[in-house]
């Protein structure tokens, strides 16, 4: 068992994790936590639920590691889990809130202390969050993949298991919606 896996490749980390090496799996979590956070928090907002879903992503990953054949990159594998869990959470929440005919914002946001020095940065993040939240989830996920993860159309199509044409058409429709919505922000 190694003391540090900082320089280890993904394959080595997966093998060690499968042998129950806590440090190796901890390194996977640290390596991909920001990537998962961009997807989960970009889709759900900076909410307490997002933290739980983030944990679920890695718990599911650990349980599914034995099925990881290495055909796709580990990052793609994790990203797929993150997308599926996030979309499931959105569906679950939609059902829950529709039971109470609640039309308001269903995000539980964390309390943030205002920092004048970072006002501009906070504002930038708020604009991006509002833009994403204004979109339907099927458009939101595509925009989040592109805007926050920096994935190309092809990569987005691969992760979401959609044809490239569908991704392109959704991007175009999302762009039209955002032109209208961002004007109002």
């Amino acid at each position, binding site marked *: 068992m190694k003391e540090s896996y900082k320089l280890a490749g993904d394959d080595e980390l997966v093998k060690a994790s499968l042998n129950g090496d806590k440090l190796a799996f*901890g390194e996977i979590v640290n390596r991909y936590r920001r990537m998962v*956070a961009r997807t989960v*928090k970009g889709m759900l907002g900076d909410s307490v639920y997002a933290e739980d879903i983030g944990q679920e992503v890695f718990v599911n990953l650990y349980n599914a590691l034995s099925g990881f054949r290495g055909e796709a990159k580990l990052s793609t594998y994790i990203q797929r889990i993150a997308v599926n869990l996030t979309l499931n959470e959105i569906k679950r929440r939609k059902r829950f809130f529709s039971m109470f005919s609640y039309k308001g914002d269903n995000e539980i946001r964390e309390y943030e202390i205002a920092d004048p020095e970072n006002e501009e940065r906070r504002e930038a*993040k708020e604009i*991006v969050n509002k833009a994403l939240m204004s979109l339907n989830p099927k458009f939101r996920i595509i925009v989040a993949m592109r805007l926050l*993860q*920096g994935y190309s159309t092809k990569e987005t199509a691969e992760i979401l298991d959609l044809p490239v044409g569908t991704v392109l058409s959704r991007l175009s429709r999302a762009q039209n919606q955002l032109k209208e919505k961002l004007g109002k922000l």
Partner: protein
Amino acid sequence: MKPSEIKKLIIGSMDEKTDPGEIARLLDDQGVSYDFRKGFAEKVTDRLFGAALTLSRDVEFTKNLNYVLYRIAITGVAAIVVLMLSIFFIQDSFSFNSFLGLGDSYDESIVYLLTGN
């Protein structure tokens, strides 16, 4: 970056010709970054390997129980051996009657004891 520039960047990012990687980096520089709270990795590994810890505690308990039962069994066997030796020295025999404490009794007295006649 001004809010209007951020909005322009968001809308422009959806053009096929733009480099999404570059846009994501630019936004990250502007503070549009996401991460989980401190201690996130520890929480995840504790959730996963905490279960293994519970399992190892169960195994540890079973091992301890086996050890205790083994000691009791050894003590029991030793007690039986001491008892058998004492019976042998007292009654000069290892017969079944000696074990029942009937080694010195006659058949008639047993019948008397059982029936009262």
